[in-house]
């Protein structure tokens, strides 16, 4: 399982919500939030993390805490 987190650097571009809709949603605060975490591994999450203009998305292995996102 992966833990998914969005940092306060998020500007609400919606790139992640558009590219991995099940895994990110824009909240009432205009920022992105993962609706559920931890989640089963899915390449769309890594694609969203790599596409984030603010490098605000971190993805870690829920058991080991090891980074699996592209910004390590």
């Amino acid at each position, binding site marked *: 399982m992966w833990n998914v987190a969005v940092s306060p*650097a998020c500007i609400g571009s*919606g*790139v992640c919500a558009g590219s991995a809709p099940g895994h990110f949603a824009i909240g009432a605060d205009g920022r992105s939030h993962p609706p559920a975490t931890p989640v089963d591994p899915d390449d*769309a999450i890594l*694609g969203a993390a790599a596409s984030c203009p603010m490098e605000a998305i971190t993805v870690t292995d829920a058991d080991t805490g090891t980074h699996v996102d592209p910004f390590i």
Partner: protein
Amino acid sequence: MTLQDDALALPLPPAPSIYHPTPRLAELRANRPVAEVTFPDGSTGWLVTRYADVRQVLIDPRFSRAAAAGSAASDTGIALVATDSILGMDPPEHTRLRRLVAGAFTARRVEELRPKVTALVDTLLTDVAARPRPVDLVEHFSLPLPVRVICELLGVPPEDQHVFHAWSDTIMSDAGGDPAEIRAAMGNLAVYFGKLIADKRATPADDLMTALIAARGNQDRLTEQELVNLCFGLLIAGHETTANQINMFLLTLLHFPEEYARLAGSPELVPQAVEELMRFVQLGEGAGLPRVTTEAVDLSGVTIPAGAVVLTSMAAANRDESVFADADRLDLSREITQHLGFGAGAHHCLGAQLARMELQEALRGLLRHLPDLRIAVPDAELRFKTGMIVRSLQSLPVTW
């Protein structure tokens, strides 16, 4: 009344000035926020004008770009290019390409470029200040700045500008309604980039094109045609928009002299001024690239059926009073807002952070070098290129 009579004919009448969108958009936003429209060829679609709805259309994957290929609203050059490119794809195909290039345009990477951009701004404006007045700002500043930045980032020789600029202009226009001319320009750019890519393969460099070539070699993550299309898409997107946004920012600031004076007196306002100007200025008069619904979707109480063409008006959304108080007023001290000047969702402007930084440095440079700048001709004498999808000035004579 039949649906046909009730449908709104596009395009909307032109705006009465370059500083505000046509008042028809405000009427639509208030009374028909999801309006059925007819295109010039007689086909129908929907125009969305409220901020929340526009943002949803841009982010919600039920509004597909891929499904919009070849729709009636897709006859501009940029839409033709878009159909063959990342702009015409949906996730996950879109993500496969976007993730390859996004890393070069993150806020962190863009900050690393800032000192070089500041130095380039200083060089260009020192040259401008030494010229006999009036000076054409397009030729000497607003165009060369973004061209040199994107050329360096991508690895394109900036001295080739005279070669690719006319093709770029054609692609950003309606080419007088002749799609063959647009396809010819696209073909020329593809040949140009094919040769550049061959050169980079032989002699790799520290630039984005070389990185994309490596991505193609490594696990075949993009096709040769995708590689070429990405490169020329980045080149076009990277300069025409920013160049004309610099022009529009300056025109708008000088049209509201009290706001310009405020900025000149408080240059620390530059970052939020750029966001407010992004919200306020209409770089393009028309709607964004069309989407097509993959299923029926309810928006503001209207059911848009499956398979419908949907257009979004960023200009209308950015003037939505329910989100931006006193929305028709330019207020450079407005708290930074989530305007839709860069779009939203999977296709949110790839170069948004780069454009922000260039616009900030351009404004700072103009305030620093030419604090008494003014436009040398009245608005009525400003000459815009015709048929362009962004407001594109032929020249901008300035004096001081």
